[in-house]
């Protein structure tokens, strides 16, 4: 099944990991990609600028209540949780940090799993905490595709390893495998 969305979570080492994956998406990629990266509270839009310059698909900061569109990468704004609503629109929230993080990967993954069920792919990349583990479990439980960056090769293995522990059915993949998997989703 072609997913209705792809959600990605990354923490320590995440910008580099994403730099190997997102620029490989072809311009005709038609699935929305939502990304939470743990970054220190700082200037807005830094990630959007960075990846906007590198990617073939559109890159933007997620805006409250906008409807997801194909072929766009949405970054959670600094200091806000990113949630997916049942109708496929997104909400932002400044509620309490989850796993000491705002945005939190679990919040995005759990709400996206709720909204899209089996039509969702979740990917947990490098990181030094456990955020995303519960979320990936929710994606797996809803019948979606769960992927982690292979802990052996991840810059910081803690986060993908924790996700794999919570969601044993997740596939551990190298960067190349992740990019190939995503590129195949774009094939006509």
């Amino acid at each position, binding site marked *: 099944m072609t997913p209705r969305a792809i959600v990605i979570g990354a923490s320590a080492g995440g910008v580099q990991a994403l730099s190997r994956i997102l620029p490989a998406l072809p311009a005709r990629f038609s699935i929305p990609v939502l990304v939470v990266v743990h970054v220190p509270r700082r200037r807005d839009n830094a990630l959007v600028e960075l990846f906007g310059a590198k990617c073939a698909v559109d890159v933007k900061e997620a805006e409250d*209540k906008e409807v997801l569109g194909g072929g766009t990468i949405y970054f959670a704004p600094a200091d806000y949780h990113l*949630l997916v*609503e049942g109708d496929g629109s997104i909400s932002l929230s400044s509620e309490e940090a989850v796993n000491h993080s705002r945005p939190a990967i679990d919040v995005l993954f759990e709400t996206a799993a709720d909204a899209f069920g089996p039509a969702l792919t979740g990917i947990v990349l490098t990181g030094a905490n456990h955020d995303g583990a519960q979320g990936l479990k929710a994606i797996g439980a809803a019948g979606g595709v769960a992927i982690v960056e292979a802990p052996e090769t991840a810059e910081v293995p803690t986060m993908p390893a924790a996700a794999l522990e919570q969601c044993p059915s997740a596939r551990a993949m190298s960067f190349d495998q992740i990019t190939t998997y995503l590129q195949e989703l774009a094939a006509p």
Partner: protein
Amino acid sequence: MTETIEDIEIELLLQAVYQHYHYDFRNYARASIKRRLLHARSQLGYDSISAMQSDVLHDRTMLPRLLNYLTVQVSEMFRDPSYFRALREKVIPHLRTYASLKVWVAGCSNGEELYSLSILFREEGLAHKTLFYATDINPTALQAAEAGVYPLDQIRLFTENHRKSGGHSSLSDYYTADYGRAVFDKSLRSQVVFSDHSLVTDAVFGEMHLISCRNVLIYFNRELQNHAIGLFHDSLARRGFLGIGSKESLRFSEHAGSFSEFVGDEKIYQRTTP
């Protein structure tokens, strides 16, 4: 996605809270409400949302506890300092021209935003002619706002924010430290009316010169955002100002055309229509 039993239970609970207590969360952004209710269920030790609903209906003391889950009380003083700087530098010069002023802080939570504005107006020499209205639906939050007491460990952040907002006094002039708490000077609320008011179910507040309502609209769905913005429009004096949260916008509102961007980057608008 297909509706789960949990989704149905949540719908019913919100309907029950509305019919019995007239708190209307039915059109709040559902993803967040659902997370928070599931959290309430597990923290309060219920097996299901339905079991929790039964207690909510039969035991009045449950309502304030539930409201603390249904509403988000995260705030800080001078949150987003650049917003307060823009008020200070761009809006205040217009407000100076009025003989008396009314300012409405809607969704004031524990009062952080209210005290920020009260201090700012005092620094700018407008406090003596300003009446503030601070409203919220959460009674626990309103009580905290009236008390004006914050944990001392937040003061560093508040002080830093205040400085970045262009504050030309020291925040420490406005509070006294007491057993790990910062107790704000009661003169800051001598011209404040606190009241229970819902942007969903209550009426217009008249003739405001400035409405500051930050990080409340994001918890609403589009229709409710539209409704609240209409309420703000009708509560503003001609050429009155509206400030909203940095990630909020007027674009889903049919009233958007009745406002002009005054400081676009800081989400400060001015009512343009008569």
